[in-house]
């Protein structure tokens, strides 16, 4: 058995026999998928509940929008009280042609949605009552496949985050642990090159990344979550490999700087969490200030994320990989160079 193969096997075994590592690598991202799936996923729960008093054409038109859900109450006073106490974002009362809306400014997003929807419904009913044909007609349609749901966007983001986390943690901790236990030193005393040691760890990282991705996507594709892959989904594979390369380089840098497992864990968290949020992993980064978006452009996770959404969900072809690949490789080179400056075989 060659040194490269046996070192890889040793690390794979060490990893798969460590239950905590397995949990963080394979179950944690799935847990996030479930949580975010519950928050954003099912369309019924995304309807805004409002209190309603009375009946009429405005209300039936409102119901047809599918944006609000009605809770009928006996009196408007009672409904307004519910708004005040924050139970519902808005209450509406319809008495003949008189429509009264009360909303809570404390929940500005939902109140805004409800206001806009009700205003447009009222306008629509007014226009219909006037008997005139509409001057402007609006044709609005979703650009993506009509089957697109929140899960389509969540999956690549959470997956990219999960891959980044485990690749960085994994390689950093191996390095710190091996240095601390003098395994690195012991390996140094054998006729094995640095390249062999580094590349065997890289193989483990890439292997773990691919396994993680397969498991995660397989679960996301079950009917419970309902992920549907775009035609050229397999383009995600080269992207995953290049992505893990860049996270591996971060991990080696962290592992070269940190002297203890605790330090490595701390540094990794400081890197991964801000990077995840800045890269639009959980929430779109488009609303962030421009300078912040510029910062996110240098983050590998941002580009892995973008590339994954493009090929897994948006159905883009190989041209979508050009930018992510270029940025990820450049990033890897820079960080790997830094890591090589800090790397040491033993604690001095």
């Amino acid at each position, binding site marked *: 058995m060659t040194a490269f193969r046996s070192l890889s096997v*040793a690390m794979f075994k*060490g990893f798969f*026999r460590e239950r905590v590592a397995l949990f963080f690598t394979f179950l944690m991202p799935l847990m996030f998928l479930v949580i975010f799936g519950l928050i954003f996923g099912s369309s019924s729960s995304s309807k805004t509940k409002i209190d309603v008093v009375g009946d009429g054409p405005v209300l039936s038109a409102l119901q047809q929008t599918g944006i609000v859900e009605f809770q009928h109450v006996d009196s408007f006073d009672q409904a307004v009280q519910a708004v005040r106490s924050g139970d519902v974002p808005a209450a509406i009362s319809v008495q003949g042609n008189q429509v009264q809306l009360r909303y809570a400014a404390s929940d500005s997003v939902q109140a805004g949605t409800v206001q806009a929807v009700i205003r447009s419904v009222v306008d629509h009913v007014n226009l219909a009552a006037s008997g005139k044909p509409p001057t402007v007609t609006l044709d609005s349609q979703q650009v993506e496949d009509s089957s697109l749901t929140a899960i389509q966007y969540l999956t690549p983001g959470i997956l990219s985050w999960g891959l980044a986390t485990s690749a960085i943690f994994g390689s950093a901790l191996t390095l710190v642990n091996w240095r601390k236990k003098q*395994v690195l030193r012991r390996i140094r005393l054998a006729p094995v090159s640095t390249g062999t040691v580094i590349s065997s760890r890289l193989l483990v990282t890439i292997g773990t990344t691919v396994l993680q991705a397969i498991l995660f996507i397989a679960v996301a594709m079950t009917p419970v979550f309902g992920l549907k892959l775009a035609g050229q989904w397999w383009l995600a594979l080269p992207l995953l490999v290049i992505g893990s390369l860049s996270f591996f380089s971060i991990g080696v840098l962290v592992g070269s700087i940190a002297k203890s497992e605790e330090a490595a864990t701390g540094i990794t968290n400081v890197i991964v969490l801000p990077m995840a949020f800045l890269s639009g992993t959980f929430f779109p980064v488009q609303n962030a200030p421009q300078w912040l978006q510029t910062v996110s452009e240098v983050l590998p996770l941002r580009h892995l994320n973008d590339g994954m959404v493009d090929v897994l969900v948006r159905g883009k072809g190989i041209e979508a990989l050009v930018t992510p690949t270029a940025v990820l490789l450049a990033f890897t080179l820079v960080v790997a160079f830094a890591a090589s400056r800090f790397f040491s075989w033993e604690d001095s």
Partner: protein
Amino acid sequence: MSKGSTIVAEGLRKRYGDLWAVDGVSFTVGEGEFFGILGPNGAGKTTTLEIIEGLRKPDEGSVTLFGEQPWPRNAKLLPRIGVQLQASSFFEKLTAREQLETFASLYGVSRGTAADMLELVGLADKANTRENKLSGGQRQRLSIACALAHDPDIVFLDEPTAALDPQARRNLWDVLRAIKDRGKTIVYTTHYLDEAEILCDRTAIMDKGKILAMDAPATLVRGLDAPTSVLIERGIVPVEEAKTLAGVDEASDDGVSLRLSTRNPAKLLSALAERGALEGLQVRGATLEDVFLELTGREYRA
């Protein structure tokens, strides 16, 4: 190579900050020799070993191993030397056999030797036990087996018996003797003087970075010209009378036994035998501890 010198170290010095951890160490080790470097903690034993292994560059002095320079990292030498480091360096979560196979493969050695090595260190029945489930003594033996996995010519063991209970230490001695019987050159450090006396062909006593004495343990002790203590049960011979016995230099009653100090134990023993006063007899010769005391003027503390 003939029975020549496996290691030649000359004038090694290594400084850490203001402290000369190794301060002018010279010695040679012959092929097949069991060489012990002995001394209290901080004597410079480990640093000396690391310089010879090629892990550190000496500030001054030179060292050759099989005629080659170990520093900078000499790939030609690496397969010929086996090293057991002070910390037990194992791969995480691997069984005893897997550890051995992994280490052997670093040298391109087939997995066949693992079973043989486990047998040698008495861990054949622990082959499938994970390293972290082994006892301290078993871990030490496994780490020695790992150092031997690629069949090196010389083995460096850094305090293999430290922190072991007496039984585990004795088991390890058997392992070390078995390794010597295979014709390996062994260089090992210890802070147990009694152990060095039993195991080593030759011992270097180190203190504060310097070698104070170097020879076969028995020669070192004999060279001391220290008196032998003969102990018998107290009350059999009165102290005053004991002082007049043949060969006795000094006699004292320590409350438990009568202690007789002599440079002629043979004469004293026959005198005691004539009187039938051998009840509870113990004879204690000088040890390396006395050598250390003589050399440094202070009691030996590991």
